[in-house]
C-alpha cells in the first residue's frame, strides 16, 4: 500500500511542475540543434554539393518513410513498449497493394486495401500485447517474420510496377511547383498532429504515465489496454502509409521493400531523447534527430562512403548520445570512488581494444593489397 502511494506521488511530482518538465527536454533538443549545425558546417566545408537545393530536396524524401513510422514509435516507446514489426508491416501492405494492382484492381482501391491490411496488422499486434498480455518485444518479433513472410507470399519473386502518375505523385511529386516534396509536407503535418496529441492532450499525458508506472496508471483509471490497442493499430496504419509512399517513390513494389528499416526508426526515436525504458521523450527531439540522421547520411553519401560504413557513424552516435552524459556523471563522482583496481581494469580494457584494432588492420592489409 505504501509502495503504491509512493509510486503515485512520484508520478504526480513528475508531472506537476510543467515548466521544469519542458526544461529537461529542451536541454537534449538544443544539443541536437548544435549537432545539426556542426554537421552542416562540416559538410559545407567538405563538399560543394551539400547546399544544392535540388539535392537536399531529393534526399529529404528518402527519410520520410522512416519519419512516418517514427511518429507512432515515439508514442509506443514512451509507454515502455516497442514495435519491431513496422518495416515488415510496411512490406506486407505495399505488397498487397502491388498484388491487387497486378490483378488489375484500380490503384486507389488497392491503396485503400493496403492501408486496411496494415491497420489490421497493427490491430493484431495490439490485441496480442494488450489483451493476451504478451511482451511487445516477443509479439512484434513474431509478426516481424509473419508480416514479411506474407509480403513474400503475395508477390513471390515478382514485382509490381506501372503505377499511374497520379499515384507516384505521393512519393515523387513536389508541392505547388516548389522544390518541397509532397512526402515532406505530409510528414510535417503528421508530426505536428502527433506532437500536439503527445504534449497537449490527456491521451498524451496517459502515455507518459503508462511509461512511468503501468500498474499505477492502471489503478488510477488510465485505460491502459485500450490505449495500447490504439497505439499499435495507429502504428500499423502509419507503417502501411509509409509503405505506399515508398512504393510510390520507387514506382514499383518488391516484397523485400523496406527490409531493416525498423532499426532506423528506433534509432531515430531513441537518438531524439525518447527513453527506451519509457516515460520520457518529446516529439521535437525525435524530429530533430531524424533531421540529424538524414543530414549525416546525405553528407557521407556525397563523400562516397558506403551505406553500411555510414552505419558505424549512426551506431556510434546512438550509443554516445547516452554514454557521454553518464560518463560525465561518472567522472564527476570519480574523486569519491577512486581506487587502483578500477584504474587497472580501465588499463586492461584499453589494452584489449588497442590489440584488437592492431589485429584488425594487420590481418586486413595483405588481402586488401592483393585484391
Amino acid at each position, binding site marked *: 500500500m505504501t509502495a503504491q502511494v509512493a509510486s503515485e506521488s512520484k508520478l504526480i511530482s513528475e508531472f506537476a511542475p510543467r515548466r521544469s518538465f519542458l526544461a529537461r527536454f529542451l536541454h537534449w533538443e538544443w544539443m541536437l540543434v548544435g549537432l545539426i549545425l556542426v554537421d552542416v558546417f562540416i559538410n559545407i566545408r567538405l563538399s560543394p554539393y551539400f547546399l544544392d537545393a535540388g539535392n537536399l530536396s531529393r534526399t529529404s524524401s528518402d527519410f520520410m518513410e522512416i519519419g512516418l513510422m517514427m511518429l507512432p514509435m515515439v508514442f509506443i516507446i514512451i509507454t515502455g513498449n516497442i514495435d519491431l514489426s513496422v518495416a515488415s508491416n510496411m512490406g506486407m501492405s505495399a505488397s498487397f497493394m502491388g498484388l491487387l494492382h497486378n490483378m488489375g484492381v484500380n490503384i486507389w482501391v488497392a491503396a485503400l486495401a493496403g492501408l486496411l491490411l496494415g491497420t489490421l496488422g497493427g490491430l493484431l499486434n495490439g490485441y496480442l500485447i494488450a489483451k493476451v498480455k504478451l511482451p511487445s518485444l*516477443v509479439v512484434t518479433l513474431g509478426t516481424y517474420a509473419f508480416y514479411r513472410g506474407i509480403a513474400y507470399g503475395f508477390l513471390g519473386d515478382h514485382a509490381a510496377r506501372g503505377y499511374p502518375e497520379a499515384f507516384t505523385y505521393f512519393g515523387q511529386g513536389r508541392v505547388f511547383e516548389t522544390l518541397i516534396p509532397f512526402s515532406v509536407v505530409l510528414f510535417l503535418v503528421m508530426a505536428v498532429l502527433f506532437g500536439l496529441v503527445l504534449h497537449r492532450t490527456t491521451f498524451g499525458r496517459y502515455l507518459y504515465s503508462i511509461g512511468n508506472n503501468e500498474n499505477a496508471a492502471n489503478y488510477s483509471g488510465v485505460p491502459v489496454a485500450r490505449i495500447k490497442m490504439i497505439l499499435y493499430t495507429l502504428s500499423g496504419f502509419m507503417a502501411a502509409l509509409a509503405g505506399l509512399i515508398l512504393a510510390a517513390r520507387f514506382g514499383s513494389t518488391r516484397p523485400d521493400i523496406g527490409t531493416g528499416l525498423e532499426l532506423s526508426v528506433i534509432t531515430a526515436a531513441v537518438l531524439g531523447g525518447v527513453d527506451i525504458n519509457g516515460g520520457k521523450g518529446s516529439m521535437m527531439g525525435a524530429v530533430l534527430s531524424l533531421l540529424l540522421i538524414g543530414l549525416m547520411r546525405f553528407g557521407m553519401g556525397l563523400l562516397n562512403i558506403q551505406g553500411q560504413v555510414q552505419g558505424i557513424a549512426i551506431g556510434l552516435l546512438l*550509443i554516445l548520445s547516452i554514454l557521454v552524459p553518464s560518463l560525465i556523471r561518472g567522472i564527476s563522482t570519480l574523486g569519491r570512488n577512486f581506487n587502483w583496481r578500477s584504474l587497472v581494469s580501465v588499463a586492461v580494457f584499453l589494452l584489449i581494444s588497442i590489440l584488437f584494432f592492431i*589485429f584488425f588492420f594487420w590481418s586486413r592489409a595483405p588481402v586488401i593489397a592483393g585484391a
Partner: protein
Amino acid sequence: MTTHTSSMRRSGPSNLLWTLVRFREAGISVFILLLMIAVTLRAPAFLTASNFEDILLNISILAIVALGQTMVIITHGIDLSVSSVIGLVAMMVAFVVKQNPEMSVVMAVVLGMALGAVLGIFNGLIITYGNVPPIIATLGTLSIYRGLVFFYSQGTWINSFELPQNFKMLSKGIAFGLPNVVIFAVVVAVVVYYFLNHTRTGRDIFAVGSNPEAAQFAGIRKQRIVFLVYLLSGMLAGLAAVLWVSRFESAQTNTALGFELQTVAASVVGGVSIGGGVGTVPGVLLGALLLGIIQNSLTLIRISPFWQLAAQGLLILIAVISDKWVLSRLERVKK
C-alpha cells in the same frame, strides 16, 4: 515474481511449481511431437535418419548462439549484435585462414572465440560502465560491427577455393557418427548447462535477472555478472562464426544478416522469459529444434518457399501464445 527451479525446490508450494516448470518443457515437446506426426503423415521422408541429421546440422549453429543469447536474456538484457559479431568474426577469421593456410584448425577456433569475446567485451563495457540500456547498446553495435565488416573487407568476400581443406572439414568432419558442428553444439550445451545450474556464477545470473536489487543486497556484483554474460554471448557468437565459415565455405559481407532475431526467437519459444530470471538449457535446445523442424518440414510438405517465412512467423506466434495460455491456466489452478 519470477522464480526459478532451484529456488522453487526450497520454497513452500514447491510441488505445483515444479510440475509447472516441467510442464512448460513438456508443452513444447508435445507441440514438436504433434508437428512431427502431422508432417510424417504428409511426407514420410521426414522420419528418416538422414533428414534428422540434416535438421541437426541446420540448428547447431543457431543453438550455440541462442544459448549465449539465453544467458543475456536471463539477466533481463538482450544482445541484438550477435549477427554482426558473427559477420565480423567470420570475415576476420576467413582473412587470416586464407593468408595462413597451414594454420591449425584449433587455432582458428580459439582466434574466433577470442575475437568474439572482445566484441562482447565492448558490449559489456557500454552496458555496465556506460549505463546504456542493452537494447540500445547492442542495436548500436549491430550497425557498428556490420559497418566494420564492410570497412574491413572493402566489399570483397572469401570464396570456397580460398579456404584450406582441413578448415572446411572442421564443421563437416564426422565424429561419433555425427557431424562435428553438432558435437560442438552438444559440448556447448553441456558446458552452459553445468555453468548455469551448478556453479555459483551461473546461479548469480538468475539472481540478477529475477531481482536485481535483492541480488545486490545478497552481495552479488551485478555489474560483473552483466558484463560476463555479454562477453560469453560474444564468445559463443565468435565460435559460431568459425563454424559458419567452415560449413558454408565462404565469408560474405552479409553473413548472418538478420540472424539475431532467430536467436531471440529460439530462446523465447524455448520458454526463456524476456523479463529475465527464467530459462533452461533444454528449453532453448527444444526451441531451436522446433524452429529447425518447422523450416525443414515446410520444404518437405512442399509449401511454396515464398510462404515459408510467413508460416514460420505464424508458428512462432502460436508457440508463444499457447505457452502463455498454458501458464495462465496453471495459475488459475494454483488459485
